[in-house]
């Protein structure tokens, strides 16, 4: 994996389908105009990633996505020395690449990363717009087109996993949620290639499961799950089987909860 200066691999050629839900596109464009960092909040599978892809395409910028995880260190973002035949060479991390060459950098699920990791983004996200590389004693000023976007699911984390106040307060936030029923049905129709009636049924099922959030389910069925169920169903699997495989089984292991979900699902099926 070597640095490709023009980041060609990260450019998005075709328009990713995104159905606007509110004024999120306008807000993002305004933030972009001032290169303000953006935080996308919302539950899993509600379209955050798709939205960023769409915006990167719309603004004609390459997009570098990093999925944060528990063991992620600052070096994973910024870069590290590696060994080769001649000795040590520096290798830019994804964040550094984006900073140097003017990409949109999307840090998915930032809370998962250790807190010391999140601190490296601080100088980038205030007026300084620089990335200090301590290891190399280098200070990289951000490219004029660099923008940082993070995602953050406030729903089910404990207080311990929350973002630091000093991190939160650097971002413009856009709130995502599952779209209104008609819009969600439209998205499912389009993404899964199913007819309107089936899409509406899936949305009704999702509504049932979302009411159980916090009552034994950590999250209700996401738009993503509904699309999966729709694809299975349009692929010839019976609807009940499709919903079971794409929604009930993945979402919970609790027998009572599954039984309750199946009752609700049966009520929704025509």
């Amino acid at each position, binding site marked *: 994996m070597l640095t490709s200066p023009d980041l060609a691999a990260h450019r998005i050629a075709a328009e990713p389908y995104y159905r606007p839900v509110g004024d999120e596109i306008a807000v993002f464009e305004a933030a972009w105009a001032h290169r303000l960092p953006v935080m996308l909040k919302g539950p899993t599978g509600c379209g955050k990633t798709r939205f960023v892809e769409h915006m990167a395409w719309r603004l004609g910028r390459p997009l570098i996505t990093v999925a944060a995880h528990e063991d992620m260190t600052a070096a994973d973002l910024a870069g590290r020395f590696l060994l080769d035949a001649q000795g040590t060479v520096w290798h830019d991390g994804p964040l550094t690449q984006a900073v140097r060459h003017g990409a949109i950098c999307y840090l998915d699920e930032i809370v998962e990363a250790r807190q010391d990791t999140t601190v490296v983004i601080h100088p980038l996200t205030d007026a300084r717009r620089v990335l200090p590389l301590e290891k190399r004693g280098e200070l990289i000023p951000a490219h004029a087109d660099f923008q940082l976007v993070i995602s953050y699911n406030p729903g089910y984390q*404990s207080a*311990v*996993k929350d973002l630091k106040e000093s991190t939160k307060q650097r971002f413009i936030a856009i709130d995502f949620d599952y779209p209104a029923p008609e819009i969600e049905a439209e998205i499912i129709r389009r993404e899964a290639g199913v007819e309107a009636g089936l899409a509406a049924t899936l949305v*009704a099922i999702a509504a049932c499961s979302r009411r*159980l959030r916090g009552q034994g389910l950590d999250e209700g069925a996401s738009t993503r799950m509904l699309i999966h169920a729709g694809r299975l169903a349009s692929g010839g699997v019976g609807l009940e089987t499709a919903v079971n495989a794409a929604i009930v089984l993945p979402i919970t292991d609790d027998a009572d*909860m599954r039984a309750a*979900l199946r*009752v609700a699902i049966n009520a929704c099926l025509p």
Partner: protein
Amino acid sequence: MKAGEVGEVGAVMERPGPNSARLAGLLAGREGLAATFAATRRRLVAARDPAGLELWAEGALALLDANAGALGLLAYARLSEEQGHRLGGAVLGEVARAAAQLCRQAGAKATEAALQAFQSLAPAMDGPGERALFWAGLIRLAAAAPDCVVPFVGRVGEVWRAGHGADFAGFIEAGLRASGPATAHGRARRRAFFALEDDLALSLAGRIGAGIGFAEMEGELRRVLTALWGSAPQLQTLPPAGRDVPRRVNIAGPVLRLPDAWPGLNAPAARRLYVASAVHAGAHLHFGNPRFPVGRDKPVQIALATLVEDARIEHLAMQRYPGLARLWAPYHRASADDGPTVAALLARLARGLFDPAYADPDALVGKAQALFRAALGEIDNPAISREIGTRLANDIGQRRLRFDARGHVTEPAYRDDGLGLWDFSAVDPEVTAEVEMIVEAARIDRRAGEDGKADGPPERSAVGRARPVSAGVEGVVVATYPEWDAPAGIERADWVTVKAMPPSLGDGAALARQLEANGALRARIARLVKAAKVGRASRLKRQSEGHDLDLDAVIEVAIARRAGLVPDLRVFRSSVLTQRDLAVLVLIDISQSTRDRLAGGLSVLDVEKRAVALLAQALAGLGDAFALMAFASNGRGEVRVHEVKGFAEPYGPEPAARLAGLSSGLSTRLGAALRHAGAMIGGVRSFRKLVLVLTDGEPSDIDTASADLVADARRAVLQLRGRGIDSFGVTLDPAGGGEGAVGEGAANEATAIFGKANVLPIRRVEDLPARLSELYFRLARR
């Protein structure tokens, strides 16, 4: 069989065997008895079973031997007359021997009653196995609680179900366990239980032979209702009633009351009926309106308006959830063949309104369907139910059909009793009496007791359970947890309710001063803290990956290269948190027993508080994540937790004041507290998680036997371990001191719960503060 015949056949065996002869001899002086037995014997002779006849006589001798008295013997004779032809002499003899055994424990009166009960139940018993279970159950009861046999046998018909002999035994065991220790109070409870004057007894009895009960369904129903209607009403059981009374769900304001069980239904059928009824009631709550004032409405009008309202809310529900039609349709089976009663006609009307395609020969059904169809434009308006209901009621009135208000039961079975739809406060005095009839008819719990007994307790319990939960001193429900029912071998879902109690603040500063007074101890703890802190974050050198280079290693690589050697490529440094990446939750038992005073005048709870305060200071010094939580319980409906300090907040004056403000009371439902602690600590990110339980005795509570709570707590510990959470019990066990060895009293139970290596019994409660902190450092090092 005619007497003459008996005589002729009997002549063959007129010569009595040795037992018969002995029996005749012993009865010789007792005129009435002798005559009865002679007559009974003659009848048995007809069976031509000489061996059986001897065994029968042997049974009578056993009863005589056991001092069963004239009444006991007469009961045996009567049983033999009634059932002899069916059971035969050998079986009767066996029964008599069992009855004699009962007699030795519980006396003649109990024996007479038991034989009488057996006589009426015997036809419903399935062979020798069931008979044996019946008598074994009674003998078990007689051995443990002889005084309960007579009252129990009087109502044994409500507990015995053919084919469910094992449940009969289970019922007796449950009664013996539920009554707790043999204090005067315990004995009174036990008597009430076996006289079926106790709610638990009635509900257990109701469930014998029923496939699945409310307890198993409650969690699922709550979730189904939430999923479909957005919120779940409070779910409760109806007061227990006799098993032959048809049961219907009752809506009481925001509370839904369902039967404990549906007697006679197998598990899948019972489950379907629970779901169908709950969803129907949920639709009432969702689409219904303020209640209809009764005003001058007649019972028949009320019944019909209710029926139309049922159809209206179901119509709305099926518009939103088309699949509900499949849920309810199987219950609409009424047809013109059901007979000419009004009740049957109402059931057909219900079907016709539910299913527009249903065609009934009675024009009234067609008329109802037409009226309903015409009103569909206004389906959101509950007033149409009353309008249509009134018109249908008039038709029924004109036909001079008699409506039996008292006997009225809503059909089909999944529909609620309808009382929740009406406001009975504004009843016109003229019709009061009539309306009361219908109310009373539906209020089956009242009707249940023919002997008037059932009136009292169920009413009281209904009030007790419906008690509104106000916030404030009552606490807020924060969670429900399952509980392991050891004797039944099942986990009861959502069985225990945990309430978070509002903090009451005490004098935290005084608590701190008490600690300061003990300088030596604090100094020792401070040293431990310091030692534990050193080397907290450790850097690992020479790693094959890491976040930066290990300079020394890099230089060695360079040297090795120059020298033409194979370099060691592990040239990175990484840092790991040491083993002590630890979160701990201290669970403090504040049940009634912690009120006990120690020699020094302090209560157990006072010492607990000091120990926890000391530990908290140490933990705060270490920077380990920790939380403090106290618990006590008042039955499964109310496990109270007091959050003294959460993981997120620092230990400061406020948590100290909350700690100082704890007070003793209530019982120890440890399993639920452990599960709640697990839920709290589960969200914390740390390498190791530890729940430290501070308790002074075995788990106990008012509604469950201690042994079962121990089993449940054990299970909770194992479940936590499965999730990577260790639990450790520190037991204050001053009483165990005399015997010396570990394994006495509370420590014994604690070992059963936490495992031998995870218990620290503390004999001198005063030592607790020092020992608790030391223990923590020991555990933290593991």
